[in-house]
């Protein structure tokens, strides 16, 4: 049977399962549509949260980021898990006790302000829309690679599948498909990792394999990896980072962003009790950790495998001949995610740290063919060539190497892993189904957060408060349908901000939503003016800091300063600024609240009531 048929069977079976669940779990009321009727078992909700949380980025990109960055990228591992500790203790149980359907509903009620609710809706929509585009494009890539269809066709298939179960079942349909998708994605992620860990270290558990001996070399795997990457001129894999302040702030930004993302928070509205919300956060992290323990092993091992493929006789011997490259490289070259450019015309593939020479050469070629500043590009090439000649005692230049010749996109490591390690075809089919499960489950969760903000907070909350339950359910379904169409269109024509998920979604959720939610629960003194001023301060300072380095509204050429460490304020990267934005939010909210009138008595009683679990009841309507 051909690989194509196997992929079709695996993806087809998983989709049939999702459709079956969609028909079984139809939503009959707004409560079912928004919070699955509030009757989801905490362990099942943990599993659904795992799939909701682990996106195309976690499944496809994270191991590649870790492989390329080594220790310095540990922030992603700690940040995307540590946020659940904050959720479990600072937000989830109290918001569950509050018992409304959406995140802006809490902010609006607690701060007795329609403006506050509106700011929250805007933050939610920006963060979730940025996030959902990445899922749609991720699904498109997976489809086009494994099912050999056009990227756009793949994206449209994905949209139809999500449309079917999200519009029909709302949160109820999404919850149970997410449970199934979790199982598919974790199996798909783990099986190739186990094989690869066995091949390299004889240890069947990848997380332990990472710290075991490399079987062939007889030294620890990480020692071997450090050795080969430094021989190729890269920073050692386990090397410490010079700027610890930035690493701390980046990790913190990811953590508070995780805790403040509405599509994650609303998952905890679906469990029956306050105590269940706490347990459920623990279970969610257990299920997430199953992938996050494996990811660093996948990253390190894939990097080693890739280097072994290019330098089969060791990194100090000649590299592989381009004509003898393995088949998987040919397949991925077709997608444009692997690029080879024989700079020194020796027919071999030199992959190493060339002090930016290869990139400078490419910029020069682009400037010559597509028009651009050829003079500046030529100067850049000359500078890079001098650096290249001097670096590593001229070892690379002496060997006749003229720059890095192989450009491998981080995103292919997980998808290509089974092929790199020569695993059987069914494992590749499984990876295809797993990647799609990760992208679709997160997309559905985000779309629900967006559509409920529109139908519940905007339509029911502002435009037509007297709408019937049936009317609101119809509005929610239409909002969901429109959100899917918009997300699909943005996935086909990704705007500049689509690549800025970490900066935009986590920055905004962390700097604006997280502090407002936390203060609403832990302080009785923060009032409407303080909350609005704080949220706007967090939102605006974070956006401005990002725009200064990445361009205003991400339009290229409009950045005021280059996005490199030497220009960052105190060495703080735009991706790490969310934590500072949150701090400013707290300070401004506190100062403004102290200067204005304390919240009315009934609001203070509301704060009291969310703090004590008894009498949670079901998630209720306004």
């Amino acid at each position: 049977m051909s690989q194509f048929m196997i992929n079709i069977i695996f993806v087809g079976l998983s989709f049939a399962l999702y459709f079956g669940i969609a028909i079984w779990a139809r939503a009959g009321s707004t409560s079912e549509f928004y919070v699955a009727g509030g009757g989801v078992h905490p362990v099942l909700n943990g599993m659904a949260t795992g799939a909701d949380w682990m996106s195309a980025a976690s499944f496809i990109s994270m191991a590649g980021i870790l492989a390329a960055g080594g220790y310095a990228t540990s922030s992603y591992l700690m940040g995307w898990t540590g946020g659940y500790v904050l959720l479990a203790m600072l937000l989830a149980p109290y918001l569950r006790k509050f018992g409304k359907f959406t995140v802006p509903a809490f902010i609006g009620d607690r701060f007795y302000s329609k403006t506050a609710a509106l700011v929250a809706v805007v933050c939610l929509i920006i963060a979730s829309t940025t996030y959902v585009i990445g899922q749609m494009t991720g699904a498109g890539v997976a489809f086009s690679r494994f099912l050999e269809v056009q990227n756009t066709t793949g994206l449209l298939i994905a949209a139809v599948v999500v449309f079917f179960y999200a519009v029909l079942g709302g949160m109820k349909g999404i919850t149970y498909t997410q449970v199934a998708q979790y199982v598919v994605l974790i199996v798909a992620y783990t099986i190739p990792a186990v094989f690869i860990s066995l091949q390299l270290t004889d240890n069947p558990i990848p997380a332990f394999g990472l710290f075991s001996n490399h079987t062939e070399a007889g030294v620890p795997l990480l020692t071997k990896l450090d050795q080969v990457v430094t021989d190729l001129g890269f920073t050692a894999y386990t090397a410490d980072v010079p700027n610890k302040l930035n690493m701390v702030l980046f990790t913190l930004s990811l953590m508070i962003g995780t805790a403040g993302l509405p599509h994650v928070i609303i998952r905890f509205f679906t469990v029956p009790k306050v105590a269940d919300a706490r347990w459920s956060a623990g279970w969610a992290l257990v299920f997430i950790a199953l992938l996050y323990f494996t990811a660093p092993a996948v990253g390190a091992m894939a990097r080693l495998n890739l280097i072994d493929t290019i330098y089969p006789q060791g990194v100090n011997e000649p590299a592989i001949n381009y004509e003898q490259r393995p088949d998987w490289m040919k397949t991925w070259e077709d997608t444009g995610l692997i690029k080879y450019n024989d700079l020194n015309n020796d027919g071999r593939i030199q992959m190493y740290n060339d002090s930016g020479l290869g990139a400078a050469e490419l910029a020069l070629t682009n400037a010559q063919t597509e028009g651009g500043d050829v003079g500046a590009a030529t100067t850049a090439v000359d500078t890079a060539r001098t650096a290249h000649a001097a670096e590593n005692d001229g070892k690379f230049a002496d060997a006749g190497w003229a720059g890095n010749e192989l450009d491998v996109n981080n995103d292919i490591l997980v998808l290509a892993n089974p092929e790199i390690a020569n695993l059987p075809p069914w494992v590749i089919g499984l990876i295809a189904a797993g990647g799609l499960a990760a992208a679709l489950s997160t997309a559905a969760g985000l779309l629900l957060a967006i559509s409920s903000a529109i139908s519940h907070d905007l339509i029911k909350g502002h435009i037509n408060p007297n709408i019937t339950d049936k009317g609101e359910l119809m509005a929610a379904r239409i909002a969901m349908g429109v959100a899917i169409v918009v997300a699909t269109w943005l996935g086909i024509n990704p705007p500049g901000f689509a690549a800025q998920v970490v900066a935009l979604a986590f920055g905004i959720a962390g700097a604006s939503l997280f502090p407002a939610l936390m203060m609403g629960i832990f302080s009785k003194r923060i009032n409407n003016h303080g909350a609005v001023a704080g949220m706007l301060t967090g939102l605006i300072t974070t956006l401005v800091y990002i725009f200064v380095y990445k361009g205003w509204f991400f339009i290229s050429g409009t950045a005021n300063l280059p996005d490199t460490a030497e220009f960052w304020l105190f060495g703080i990267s735009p991706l790490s600024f969310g934590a500072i934005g949150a701090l400013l939010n707290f300070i401004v909210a506190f100062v403004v609240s102290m200067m204005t009138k304390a919240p009315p008595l009934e609001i203070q009683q509301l704060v009291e009531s969310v703090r004590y679990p008894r009498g949670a009841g079901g998630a209720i309507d306004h």
Partner: protein
Amino acid sequence: MDHNTDPSGYWKANVRLIFGCLFVWALVSYGFGILFRPLLAGIAIGGTDLGFWFAQQGSIIFFIIIIFFYAWRMNQLDKKYGLDEE
């Protein structure tokens, strides 16, 4: 069962517990994983040092333990103050 009826005691106990948990949360991630990594450099583990292990695996294990510990302690507090749900 003997219920403690002052609910403000419940909230204070919760906040104390949260501070304790957050201290451990920060210690295993920002502490051992990032800031104190040079101090742990002498403790070798599988080809690297303990700080690397905390940053890539250890912190996550502790995060899970912290959440379950918190959930368990809060259930005890709910019962003690008669605030547990039926």
